[in-house]
């Protein structure tokens, strides 16, 4: 009989070690797998361009990225972080890593919030948090910086709930790092969940915890808060009507919101999203998750953040619902009119993030409930039924939202910037003289070619490419049925230049155009020829402009007057 080696682990010890490994790293692995499945083709070389998601090669650490541009610092400090990472890695690799981080961080964080043991329940929470309509719609709107804050939300919840004294401050600060990078909207979301959790405890501890959380939030917000307070940017109250939530399924607005959908942009929903079967399935899944949350609160293992997260989710849902009735929209408009700082309230769908987290943990609660309600029995059939249902809960988010897979069925796909873009970028950035770049056509969004007769709509890449102020039309145009609604821009210089532009987004051919642009501090004019409307003529016939680059895609002019 061979002697046993005391240093060698027994099969039982190995199984225990493997189980421990799975509990620790399984949710992050699920997040990574979900990220790979969602991004799919987007993981390949090239840049994924989609609405607000613009990564560029050789992104400069421009004044705008640091918060010292003319408009509201919405992309601060996310653009600066992307630019810093871009100094050591290619821009497309930076984009891929940041997007994958959203999935890994979010899944691991959501799983950590599940009270009690159980890999199945933790896995269900992990997957539900990174595969749901909220994430899908925000990703298709290109709001990667917001999603970074969304991914950090569970960590903020955990840190706020565990706060007992100043020694816990580093944990709160670390949890707020994703929100700090994400910027403005991410910080608002983090405040929405962290403050109720800090407040809803005995009053002495509530004051201390709230002060600590507020202090950390203020520090995390400094990069954008200081420039925001210093800027003259305003918010158009009309944005409330344009960005109000809407029904994106046949089940109506309330059902859409409960299912974590309802984004204002009909082009930011995954393929097949409005199909009744899937919509009903997602609503049922949300109701199961809410039931599971209720069970966790009343009978299950008590999470320490229950009241705070419930309050945050309810408040968020209320803000989103406010946009669905005229009275609610009136209140929101009045608040924004009163103080532009209420501007974030215009995008109601944003505030569903706490509900997404609550539902993810609630789904885990439902799995635990089902397991405990029959788990004491030893019948093999009962155990198999428990496992089958746990498997269903685990896979349901994916099965009910297949349109998110593989880059939302090919919607997210990488493209390369034509070389002309890099040439123009180099020419502008090598010029030591000060002066802004005017980007034309006079429209915030571009159709960027992704292949033959195919384009993706994306924010003008020139804004991120050059190391000098860029004057662009930051007014937002949204089609609402037959009507074209316009949300006024926030940049005062752009508002002064706007009257020089015609309906086709190009300057009217006036003799003193160069002088007037020079008076506004414009040194360069960049025209994206691929976005110039057919039949339009470039209004630079008069003197005062010198062509620096004249290619088939881009025209770069220097204002010489």
């Amino acid at each position, binding site marked *: 009989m061979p002697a046993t080696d005391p240093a060698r682990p027994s099969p039982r010890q190995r199984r225990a070690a493997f189980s421990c490994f799975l509990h620790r790293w399984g949710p992050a692995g699920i997040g990574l797998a979900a990220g790979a499945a969602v991004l799919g083709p987007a993981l390949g070389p090239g840049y994924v361009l989609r609405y607000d998601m613009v990564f560029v090669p050789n992104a400069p650490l421009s004044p705008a990225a640091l918060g010292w541009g003319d408009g509201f610092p919405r992309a601060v400090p996310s653009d600066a972080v992307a630019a810093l990472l871009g100094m050591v890695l290619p821009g497309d690799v930076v984009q891929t890593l940041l997007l994958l981080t959203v999935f890994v961080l979010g899944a691991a964080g959501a799983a950590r919030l599940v009270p009690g043991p159980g890999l199945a329940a933790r896995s269900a929470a992990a997957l539900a948090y990174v595969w749901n309509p909220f994430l899908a719609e925000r990703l298709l709107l290109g709001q990667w910086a917001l999603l970074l804050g969304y991914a950090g939300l569970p960590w903020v919840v955990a840190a706020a709930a565990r706060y007992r004294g100043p020694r816990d401050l580093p944990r709160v600060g670390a949890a707020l790092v994703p929100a700090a990078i994400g910027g403005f909207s991410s910080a608002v979301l983090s405040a929405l969940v962290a403050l109720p959790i800090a407040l809803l405890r005995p009053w002495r501890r509530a004051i201390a915890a709230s002060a600590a959380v507020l202090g950390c939030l203020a520090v995390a917000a400094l990069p954008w808060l200081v420039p925001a307070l210093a800027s003259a940017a305003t918010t158009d109250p009309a944005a409330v009507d344009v960005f109000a939530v809407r029904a994106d399924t046949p089940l109506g607005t309330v059902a859409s919101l409960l299912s974590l959908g309802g984004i204002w942009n009909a082009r930011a929903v995954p393929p097949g999203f409005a199909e009744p079967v899937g919509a009903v399935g997602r609503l049922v899944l949300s109701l199961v998750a809410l039931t599971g949350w209720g069970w966790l609160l009343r009978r299950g293992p008590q999470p320490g953040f229950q009241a705070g997260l419930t309050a945050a989710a309810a408040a968020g849902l209320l803000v989103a619902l406010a946009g669905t009735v005229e009275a609610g929209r009136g209140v929101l408009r009045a608040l924004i009119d009163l103080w532009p700082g209420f501007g974030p309230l215009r995008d109601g769908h944003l505030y569903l993030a706490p509900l997404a987290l609550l539902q993810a943990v609630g789904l885990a609660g439902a799995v635990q409930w089902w397991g405990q309600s029959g788990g004491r029995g030893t019948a093999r059939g009962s155990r198999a039924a428990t496992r*089958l249902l746990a498997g269903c809960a685990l896979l349901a988010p994916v099965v009910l939202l297949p349109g998110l897979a593989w880059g939302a069925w090919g919607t997210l796909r990488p493209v390369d910037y034509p070389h002309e873009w890099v040439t123009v970028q180099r020419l502008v950035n090598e010029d030591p003289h000060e002066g802004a770049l005017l980007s034309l056509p006079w429209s915030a969004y571009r159709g960027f070619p992704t292949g033959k007769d195919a384009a993706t709509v994306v924010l003008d890449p020139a804004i991120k490419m050059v190391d000098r102020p860029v004057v662009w039309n930051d007014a937002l145009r949204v089609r609402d049925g037959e009507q074209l609604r316009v949300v006024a821009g926030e940049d005062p210089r752009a508002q002064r230049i706007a009257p020089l532009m015609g309906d086709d987004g190009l300057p009217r051919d006036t003799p003193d155009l160069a002088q007037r642009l020079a008076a506004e501090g414009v040194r360069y004019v960049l025209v994206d020829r691929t976005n110039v409307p057919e039949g339009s003529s470039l209004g630079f016939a008069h003197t005062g402009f010198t062509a620096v680059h004249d290619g088939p895609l881009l025209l770069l002019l220097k204002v010489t007057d």
Partner: protein
Amino acid sequence: MVRILVACAVGAALAVVATLTVTTVATTSATSVEPVNETLYNYGDR
């Protein structure tokens, strides 16, 4: 026994929904197109 029946029913329903939704997504994604060559591009459509 009830637990087994419930689990089987949920599993079967999910399988049916999966088949339907994947088929629908495959069909709709082939027909839906992004806007190309617009006069000026919008932020989106409500």
